[in-house]
Structure formats: structure tokens, C-alpha cells
């Protein structure tokens, strides 16, 4: 199944969840947030399954003014 993660294409196993992709993307245990197709996904909902062509944004803390 193909999804977009942080602007890049990625093939993931069918039935992958948000949590799966987060795990693959960052080792950060905290200070991390996810948007699915532009909508915020609370950590409680990370078990949600992804669908073909979903747009996932995985953001973490960075230095900022």
C-alpha cells in the first residue's frame, strides 16, 4: 500500500496503522505529533489503519524562535 509520509512516497504493509508508520519514522518517544490528510491524530487514535494514498505528517520538536 502506498502512502505519503512527510512529503515522500512510502510503501507500507496493508493494514499498517499510524503507530506503525510513526515507529518506522522516528525513535522519539515523545514530542511527536501526527497529522493524517491534514487532520490532527491524537495519540489515542494512532491505532487507526491507513488507507491507500493517505498523507501522513510526522512532526517533532526542533529549535524555533
Amino acid at each position, binding site marked *: 500500500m502506498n502512502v505519503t509520509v512527510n512529503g515522500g512516497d512510502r510503501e507500507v504493509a496493508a493494514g499498517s496503522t499510524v503507530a506503525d508508520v510513526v515507529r518506522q519514522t522516528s525513535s522519539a518517544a515523545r514530542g511527536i*505529533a*501526527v497529522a493524517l490528510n491534514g487532520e490532527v491524530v491524537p495519540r489515542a487514535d494512532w491505532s487507526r489503519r491507513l488507507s491507500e494514498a493517505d498523507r501522513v505528517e510526522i512532526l517533532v520538536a526542533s*529549535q*524555533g524562535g
Partner: protein
Amino acid sequence: MADAFTVDGVTLPSRLILGTGGAPSHAAAEAAIRASGTGLVTVALRRVDPTATGSILDVVDRCGVRLLPNTAGCFTAAQAIRTAHLAREAFGTDWVKLEVIGDERTLLPDAVELLAAAEKLVADGFTVWPYTNDDPILARRLADAGCAVVMPLGSPIGTGLGIRNPHNIALITEAATVPVVLDAGIGTASDAALAMELGCSAVLAASAITRAADPAVMAEAMRHAVHAGRLAYLAGRIPRRHHAEASTAFEGMGEL
């Protein structure tokens, strides 16, 4: 504290807020945070950078300071609102430094989008710290909308031009119903002191510290400058005179 700076019921240990953006390294950021004596630092949300080592969050934890997530880089209210919600998820805080800018040339805030975003975020239960221009009317509207503070700029982000229009900052502070935090444009210590003398409750500095030749030394300079400006404001300065007034009396001079 006799002269406490309190926002949303939280009393901060310092009237200096540090922006971490621009620091050459996490180590430099940590040294600056410690030297500044600040209790509050800003962070942004960005995509995972595989090449990055360590996290600014570790620095923040080690320093024991609070986080103020920002919405830097957002051009619309919608973008900023979404970013604020993501930040709440990521950092578990309702505090947000709201930035909605109008262009990349000036990075100046967009009044209309900013106010719209502020109203929504206040409704969503955020403690909103809006980065605004030095317009007294917009500042009042943001306060009326329920923002916890207003953060007028001294000059555009990263310019180091200091406070280009002290008159506007004075017009803002003299009528303010919430704390005024001078944000953006600070170039050096005297700029920060001036902000406090104009009646600001605090100062946020980022580039001025993180991009100085020696960030930690500049951070210490800013710590003293903000304290100096605050004390001068409380002490009550002498009036400005056109002509001189002797500090040493002429009376009693000997005939020599």
C-alpha cells in the same frame, strides 16, 4: 516574588524568554538557556530529520524550563490553528506562540489572519501568545479576543534593528490590559533594556542571542539588560530637559 511576571497563573522566574531558533548546536542552545536565566523557551514543530542527533527537548528537560511551542512559518489562520493543535499533542501544553506571517521578505504578521487564528485558539482553550506588529489597535483587539499576552515586534525578525518605533510600544503598554512582551528585532542588550523601560513586562530574544558571536555571553547580557530595564522602569527615571542642570551645586564655591 515582589515583582513577579505571571501568565495563565504561572509565575515565570525571569522576564526574558529565549527563542532557540538559530543556535549553532543543541550544546550552544543549552549554554545560552542556562546563561539567560530564562524559565521559558520556544520550540517549533518540523518533520523528522533523520540526520539530527539528540532533541531540543532533552536540552529543555536538562535546563528545567517550560516550553512555548510556536507556529513559525504559517501563512494562514488554518495552518496556524492546525499547527497549534499538533503542538498541544506533541508537547502536552496549552501554551502557544502564535505566528501568522504575511510574507517571507519581512516575516511580518498578517493582522487579519492573526486575529482570526487567535480567536479560534482561545475558543479551543489555548493560552495564546500572539506575535503581532506594533499596532496599538491590533494589540487591543488581540487582548479583547482573550490572548494571555500581546507580543509586538520591535523590528522584523532577525534584523537586529531594535525598537524602530518606541512611540507605538509606549502607546501599547500604557493602554494594555494584558502583559506586553517585546518580540522580534532585538539586536543587543540596550534594545532589551529599552523595551522594559517602555513598560513591557518581558522580552523574547532569539537570533540576537543564538546568532551572536558568543551566544552564552550575549544571553547573560540580555539577562542583565532585561532586569536593568525593569528596575529602571520601577525606579522612575528623571525627566528629559533641553538645558543642563548642574549635579554639583554652584552654591558654596570658593573664590579662587
